[in-house]
């Protein structure tokens, strides 16, 4: 191991450096000049995002605890882009009197969770995986409770923290059994272990699955999600529902495909059931919501169900479609959250009925939200269509009748989802309102954020090299 090896950890190290710079800046600036911290952090993060795209080498570090692979790098870049958009949308939040004092804390905590995710994504053993997971969760609970002035925010924080404690307990129990049964916690060792699958193995798988299903908010392990999403500040919600979920989905896929690839007979049926449950329950709950954040929370639960369709195939293509969908989802959901956060921050309105007649006063925002929702619903020409279609393709590629039926169920669920995705559209465009949200100018950062997401939403779909690169990177994951 030499110094160059650290370049493999470029994403993480740069981010740690940025975190420290923010910390130092907080200490070094006087109270009156604190307002530069947020833009500073944003700029630094933008630089970090760009650095992430520089070509890099791949390899393994620390005795296999840290892996750097093409697909890892891609996922990290996707997460970076997502976080960049979240940060852009968050800028406005720091203008308010209440939050002005905690800007740097916000960034430090947020960046820490991102570092955790990076390590989780790159993990080569369950220890790093677990540590990453916890880093990505515990501080997030604090972020959810960021708004001190609000009951809901505190409630969201405690709900997230306690439920994640339970779930990580279960997950750990599963890992301990895996360790007992196989003698190692390193992915490599577990892949190549040759063993028959006993009840204990299955138990380990299921407990691990439950813990990850919690992170991904899959039914029936999803119940925390809606409450937390609703209570947390809108930017944290978007971070939770997009970035955190994306990272978890990726590593979940990797672990299933590598460590548990011998168990496919077990986890595939399990995932089959959970996928169906998740889509149906998520959609059914989303139907009735009026609060925009809660609405998107349930919609994102249902989206996770769709994501499983890609995972279930167990092929490189399946993994590629999952990563691709994460990318699509980053742009689409963040665009939706972006509009919602702009509206909430400028007017304090948070419900769908508040949107009534908004197109006539704020046409651009309305169009952006409409496109985002269409993308989530999987309607062309935006990327969501491609994402969903590929997921279905991946699920169908298994070729069994059962899988076709799964695809059919998923497709029928898209109809339900279309219904509720159209509700805000209806509110904005069709419903009449005597006093719609008045015209306002959104701040520059948020506009940039929206612009990035919208561009992404269009480009990701039509530009096929994106998908092709992801797919190319997905080959070579052990076990595929």
């Amino acid at each position: 191991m030499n110094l160059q090896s650290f370049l493999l950890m470029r994403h993480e190290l740069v981010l740690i450096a940025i975190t420290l710079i923010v910390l130092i800046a907080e200490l070094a600036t006087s109270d009156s000049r604190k307002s530069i911290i947020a833009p500073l952090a944003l700029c630094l993060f933008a630089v970090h995002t760009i650095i992430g795209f520089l070509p890099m080498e791949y390899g393994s570090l620390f005795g296999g605890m840290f892996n750097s692979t093409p697909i890892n790098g891609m996922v990290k870049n996707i997460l970076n882009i997502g976080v960049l958009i979240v940060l852009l949308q968050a800028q406005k939040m720091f203008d308010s009197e209440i939050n002005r004092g905690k800007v740097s804390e916000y960034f430090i905590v947020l960046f820490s969770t991102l570092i955790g995710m990076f390590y989780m994504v790159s993990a080569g053993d369950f220890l790093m995986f677990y540590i990453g997971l916890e880093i990505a969760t515990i501080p997030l609970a604090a972020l959810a409770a960021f708004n001190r002035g609000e009951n809901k925010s505190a409630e969201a924080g405690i709900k997230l923290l306690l439920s994640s404690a339970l779930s990580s307990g279960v997950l750990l129990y599963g890992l301990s059994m895996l360790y007992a049964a196989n003698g190692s916690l390193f992915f490599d060792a577990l892949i190549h272990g040759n063993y028959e699958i006993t009840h204990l193995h299955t138990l380990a798988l299921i407990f691990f699955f439950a813990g990850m299903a919690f992170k991904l908010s899959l039914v029936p392990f999803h119940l925390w999600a809606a409450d937390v999403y609703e209570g947390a500040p809108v930017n944290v919600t978007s971070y939770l529902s997009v970035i955190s979920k994306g990272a978890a989905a990726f590593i979940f896929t990797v672990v299933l495909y590598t460590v548990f690839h011998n168990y496919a007979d077990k986890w595939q049926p399990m995932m089959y059931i959970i996928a169906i449950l998740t889509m149906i329950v998520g959609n059914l709950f989303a139907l009735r919501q009026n609060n925009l954040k809660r609405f998107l929370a349930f919609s994102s639960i249902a989206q996770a169900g769709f994501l499983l369709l890609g995972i279930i195939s167990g092929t490189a293509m399946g993994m590629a479609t999952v990563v691709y969908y994460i990318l699509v989802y980053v742009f689409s959901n963040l665009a939706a959250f972006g509009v919602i956060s702009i509206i909430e921050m400028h007017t304090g309105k948070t419900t769908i009925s508040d949107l009534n007649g908004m197109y006539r006063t704020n046409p651009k925002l309305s169009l952006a939200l409409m496109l985002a929702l269409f993308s989530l619903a999987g309607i062309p020409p935006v990327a969501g269509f491609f994402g969903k279609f590929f997921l279905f393709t991946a699920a169908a590629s298994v070729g069994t009748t059962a899988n076709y039926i799964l695809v059919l169920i998923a497709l029928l669920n898209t109809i339900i989802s279309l219904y509720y995705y159209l509700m805000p559209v209806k509110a904005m465009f069709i419903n009449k309102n005597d006093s719609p949200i008045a015209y306002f100018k959104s701040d520059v950062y948020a506009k940039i954020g929206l612009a990035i997401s919208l561009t992404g939403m269009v480009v990701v779909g039509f530009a096929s090299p994106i998908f092709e690169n992801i797919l190319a990177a997905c080959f070579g994951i052990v076990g595929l």
Partner: protein
Amino acid sequence: MDWTYTLAIILLPLATFLTIGLLDKSMPNKLAGVLGTASIGTAFLLSCYTAYQYFFVHGMVDGAYQKIVAFNMEWLRFTDTLHIDLGVILDPISVMMLMVVTTVSLMVHIYSNGYMHGERGFNKFFSFLSLFSFSMLGLVVATNLFQMYIFWELVGVSSFLLIGYYYEKPSAVAASKKAFITTRFADLGFLIGILLLSWYTGTFDFTELTQTTAIGGLAMAMPMGTSFLGLSIVSWALILIFMGGAGKSAMFPLHIWLPDAMEGPTPVSALIHAATMVVAGVYLVARLFPIYAIAAPDALTVVMWVGAISSLFAAIIACTQYDIKRVLAFSTMSQIGYMMLALGVSQYSEGSNLGFTASMFHLTTHAMFKALLFLGAGSIIHAVHSNSMLDMGGLRKYMPITFVTFGIAWLAICGFPGLSGFFSKDEILVAAMQHNTPVFIIAVIVAGLTAFYMSRLFFSVFFGKNTHYHHTPHESPKTMTIPLMILAFFAVFAGYIPFNEFVTSTGEPFHSHFHWNVAIPVTLIAFIGMGIAFVLYYKESEIPTKVTKALSWVYTTIFHKFYIDEIYLFVTKKILFGIVARFIAWFDRHVIDATMNGFAIVTNYVSVSIKGLQSGQIQKYGLIFLSGAIFFALVFIYLFV
């Protein structure tokens, strides 16, 4: 010989229709009238020329008048063998029909210039007349079944438009609707018949269809064997085709539209509903006569009986009607029944094809005198402003020309010796007598009834009581009386055309002689009918009222046309459109649509009913989390191994 010029006969009216129709109001009325008349006049002249060329210049080949395809082009291809062509066929019956149609049409055009004078839709009327002439001529010269069907539909629609000419009058609208729908229903049979026939023969073309050898082959082929309800498929096909003809020709039981169609302007009634369109059915059967006669005698029997029943039925009803045009309408129906009957009793062989010729003969003479009757009636209505015979009486003083011409037509239709009707009727009766006694008896009865009701009409209009008129009726203008006179001429002399020389089923002329043994008794019967009418209606008398009272039940039934209309109305309006259609509409909204909405409702319901899952209690979340994990552990450890 180049016959292509015959195309002009058909295209001229079409051009006129388009010109007048598109220019519509921007064209002066006078010009439109003149243009329409001139174009049909030209067509008339061309027809005369064609007839002359066909019968006298081109003449017979191999002892028979041949079918000549003057023009033919492919219009639409279905399969390699089945294709619709548009063309012009010339043979004795089509040339004869060309003459009849253009003659009557020309007369009606001239007449309409006066009759329709000052009407708001004068131009529209003329464009429709041209459209009708075009369609009717196209029908006549059709080279194949499908072309016939095409123009068949077109005459139907022109008839619809013309009946509904007074579109602001609800009764006119209803009548036009009824006419169209009834004939449409009949056409359905026609269409299916065409489909059946063409599927077995592989062609629509008349020339191919009516080749006796081909028919012979057809008779040998499979369809004769395949039978349905005891009749061969070819018979069914031809019966269905005849159904179309029956609809257009107002044969029982598809006649219900004809009386109502009298809502149209009278010239229209004369042209379409007396002389030309309504005989299309007869023409259709005549056109396909070889197949009927050779391959499907059963179908021909049906034709015969339908004709016989219709003629009797209509004649009976005509005796009781008061609306002058309706009487004429029923009379038309009765006479067409006669023609059908004549076709039915004919055969496709030498010596026994008198009926065919008689039918065509009667078609021609009937066209002349019936058009005359209608135009005369129009003249009367024009003067009296009423259709009801009750409002008329003693008109001979006021309208001498009308009186005389109408009188000629009356005598002609009654079969007064020497006039056209006498000869044509006689031939029909002879043919019937030779073939089928019951039908002959019916025909004789009808002859008597015809004489009676026509005389009833004639006497009560021109003689009878002296009615008081609001303003004194006066003779119609020249434009109306001249056509009356011309037609009167034809009504008298058309009977002297030697039809057996020209128009026969095989194309070969045959010798025919006058049958005094039939003519004398029938003429006597006709005189009896006229006599009774004279007694009853020449002077105002109480007797008719007494008779009706005595036979009140029978009379009412007949007066209401045997309640056929009511039965139809019940079946269509009440059952089909009332119950069935409403039920379907209801079913669609409340069952099928409701099912679709039901999906949404159920989804919503489930959504509401599971909302308790999201209780907000973190410990319940935990419990569900744990139960989920345990459930999967149970399932995948113990059940799903």
